[in-house]
């Protein structure tokens, strides 16, 4: 068996039990008593700031009050009415930047109501109890194609199915769930939650899933538009930005999203290789997820190298602290200029940067870090625009996800507007569904 000091990229750096512990729930679920105590802290604010801060506008004071009166199932309904993926959002939402940041008790005491954990308590309670809480309206006979079985597509499909439309979801990958299944850190979605949530969501009925079908490869927008009454595009950003740094093709250089996906799908974490010296290039959630999980797999030294300052990092301060607390080194204002090594990467050469006011400039000062595994996490891109108008590098949408083509809607990470968050994708998918429903029943 190898250990954290084993040179190169090696599997089983840590014993299986340690790995199991490392990848357990980041936050233990609240038990009934803890939930009641936490719920008691909510002030039931008027026009509550937490609701305003929630992209899906969940009525947070109401659901917390429902928990405090002993009806977590009703609380879950309040959540699911606005956000059918409320279970996953309770786990992955950057609540520290959203509802909990807005909580008046954060302002008052620097200690917000634990909204995320309470949401998980409510949704877990209902999902454990009830197969599916919603009923379909009578069939409308209308059909909708949804591209992508990620948060946007699932939210859209569920809402459409609820209104009686027949939905077919196409996904390029062999399993549904999108980033929930393949993209987020394992310790945020334990016990196969992403897959269980999709199964539960499909319980509404009226949704057919076809996997292994990608737009632009197996499907064309024209074909879909002909066959279905409406099309929703929620395929996310399947492409990965290149570093465009010399040596990027060396062994050991890899996209962070692939590493995370492999980890999420691994049935045996001891079989998953990781470097001794890992460097992650980037400053977002993907960078943090890759770095922390590398550390949890047993990498000895893990560094996140970000080209701008800490303030500009898109990973929240909470995520930065999470990384730091796991022993990940955060290096700011450095950009890669060269990746050295023979066949495999041995060192990464970084140049210090400074924001001169006229954009980010290299200072000419260099630093070299030993590295045997380098992850690129500098953003994802759209794989196909399907002939639609773009806004920047994303599909341009107006209103509730209307694209430049009539009868085609888009939402989630592939569409313009909004942060690239699960919860934002859910809101966009849901709202597009309501707009589609209005169009189909007009």
């Amino acid at each position: 068996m190898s250990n954290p000091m084993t040179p190169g990229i090696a599997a089983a750096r840590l014993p299986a039990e340690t790995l199991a512990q490392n990848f357990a729930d980041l936050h233990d679920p609240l038990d009934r008593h803890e939930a009641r105590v936490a719920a008691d802290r909510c002030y039931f604010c008027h026009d509550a700031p937490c609701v305003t801060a929630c992209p899906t506008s969940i009525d947070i004071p109401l659901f917390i009050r429902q928990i405090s009166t002993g009806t977590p199932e009703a609380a879950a309904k309040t959540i699911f009415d606005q956000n059918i993926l409320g279970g996953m959002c309770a786990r992955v939402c950057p609540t520290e930047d959203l509802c909990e940041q807005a909580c008046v008790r954060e302002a008052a005491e620097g200690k917000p109501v634990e909204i995320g954990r309470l949401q998980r308590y409510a949704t877990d309670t209902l999902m454990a109890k009830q197969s599916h809480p919603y009923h379909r309206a009578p069939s409308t006979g209308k059909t909708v194609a949804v591209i992508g079985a990620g948060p946007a597509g699932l939210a859209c499909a569920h809402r459409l199915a609820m209104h009686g439309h027949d939905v077919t979801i196409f996904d390029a990958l062999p399993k549904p769930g999108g980033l929930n299944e393949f993209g987020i850190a394992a310790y945020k979605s334990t016990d196969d939650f992403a897959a269980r949530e999709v199964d539960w969501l499909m319980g509404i009925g009226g949704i057919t899933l076809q996997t292994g079908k990608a737009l632009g490869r197996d499907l064309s927008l024209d074909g879909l538009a002909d066959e279905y009454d409406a099309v929703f595009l929620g395929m996310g950003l399947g492409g990965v930005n290149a570093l465009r740094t010399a040596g990027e093709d060396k062994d050991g250089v890899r996209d962070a999203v692939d590493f995370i996906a492999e980890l999420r799908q691994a049935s045996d974490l001891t079989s998953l290789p990781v470097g001794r010296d890992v460097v992650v290039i980037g400053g977002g959630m993907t960078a943090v997820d890759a770095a922390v999980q590398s550390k949890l797999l047993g990498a000895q030294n893990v560094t996140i190298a970000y080209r701008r300052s800490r303030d500009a990092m898109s990973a929240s301060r909470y995520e930065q602290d999470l990384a730091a607390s796991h022993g990940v080194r955060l290096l700011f204002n450095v950009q890669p200029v060269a990746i050295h090594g023979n066949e495999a990467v041995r060192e990464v050469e970084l140049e210090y940067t400074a924001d001169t006011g006229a954009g980010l400039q290299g200072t000419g000062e260099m630093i070299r870090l030993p590295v045997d595994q380098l992850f690129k996490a500098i953003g994802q891109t759209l794989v196909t625009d399907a002939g639609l108008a773009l806004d920047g590098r994303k599909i341009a949408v107006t209103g509730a996800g209307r694209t430049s083509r009539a009868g085609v809607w888009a939402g989630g990470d592939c569409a313009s507007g909004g942060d690239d968050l699960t919860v934002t994708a859910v809101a966009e998918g849901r709202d597009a569904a309501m707009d589609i429903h209005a169009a189909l029943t007009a």
Partner: protein
Amino acid sequence: MADLTTNFLGIKSPNPFWLASAPPTDKEYNVRRAFEAGWGGVVWKTLGSEGPPVVNVNGPRYGAIYGADRRLLGLNNIELITDRPLQTNLDEIKRVKADYPDRAMIVSIMVPCEEQAWKDILPRVQETGADGIELNFGCPHGMSERGMGAAVGQVPEYIEMVTRWCKQYYDKPVIVKLTPNITDIRKPAAAAMRGGADAVSLINTINSITSVNLDTMSPEPSIDGKGSHGGYCGPAVKPIALSMVSEIARHPDTHGLPISGIGGVTTWRDAAEYISLGCGNVQVCTAAMTYGFKIVQEMISGLSQWMDEKGYTSVEQVVGRAVPNVTDWQYLNLNYVAKAKISQDDCIKCGRCYAACEDTSHQAIAMSADRTFTVIDEECVACNLCVDVCPVENCITMEAMEPGQVDPRTGKVVQKDYANWTTHPNNPGAVAAE
């Protein structure tokens, strides 16, 4: 540190905090530990007549209501008087009093409304060396069905009669404990006074059902599927008790009658409030039953600190200080005008003041797009609801307007003179101001 020594009816105790007659004072073991913890006195749990002791239920005796964080606000009980043999209690009382001569030892008694019953028990109590007795005319459950407790306390003539017997057959102070389960507390207090009572203590517990079990459809506490009303106590009853105490303290017939205040005393502040409304001391039960005997330490340190800060050197100086300020509504100054003021520095923007005012009061709080909440003086009647619902203490205050200023709500100049309803032009029965 202020001297908390009190002299109530000639009974000295190192502080005004006595444990009320209740489960905490049921036996020697508890009372010794209470005294060690610092309690100034105890009223021993009520003794009954010689003979087979009463029996208690063998299921739950208490029910409760809670505030946030399951903080106990109100407790209800269906326990009866002591269920131990009379002589056992008397022996224990005698031993404890002998070992703690500086502490107050009062014996609570409840025997049938017959002269002989009192004649029988009083000499035996006298023999213990206890400092006085308290007549339990208050328990609202169980004993009242047998013609004792509240059944006596609800009939002023019985109170007077029994009190007179006690004064006749017992040499030391007699305290009459009053039930709140009546319409006018002054009547039983006056009756006790006529009977020669040295003091009254109040309130005993209030008839109550704390909750209903919605699975079994039984009131709680439930005994094999059935529930009975019990006696309610704890912080939730304090406002009721304070009002009753003040009525006795300010009524000409009962003014000056020593009072031992009971009902939800949980902190030094509660005690100081009772004392300011005319109580010579306070009795505590629920707080001890919730937190243990140790809480008396906070009561002692808090009352002492407050007295030092205010310059009071004895508890006696505080007794009744607030009584002159208790009046009837008709004498309140209608020329006094206040307006709510929200401190923007302290506001945490929860908006509860807005919801309360907008939905249920006078629509006198404005909310801006950035959640700044401000009082609309033109609408504010100073009802205080915003102050009451605000989670941040002192964030919203009521500011008195100065005479000469114009009240933007009424357009009238605030008058400096006092004027009340009795002389108000809208009062059909108004009398001309003299």
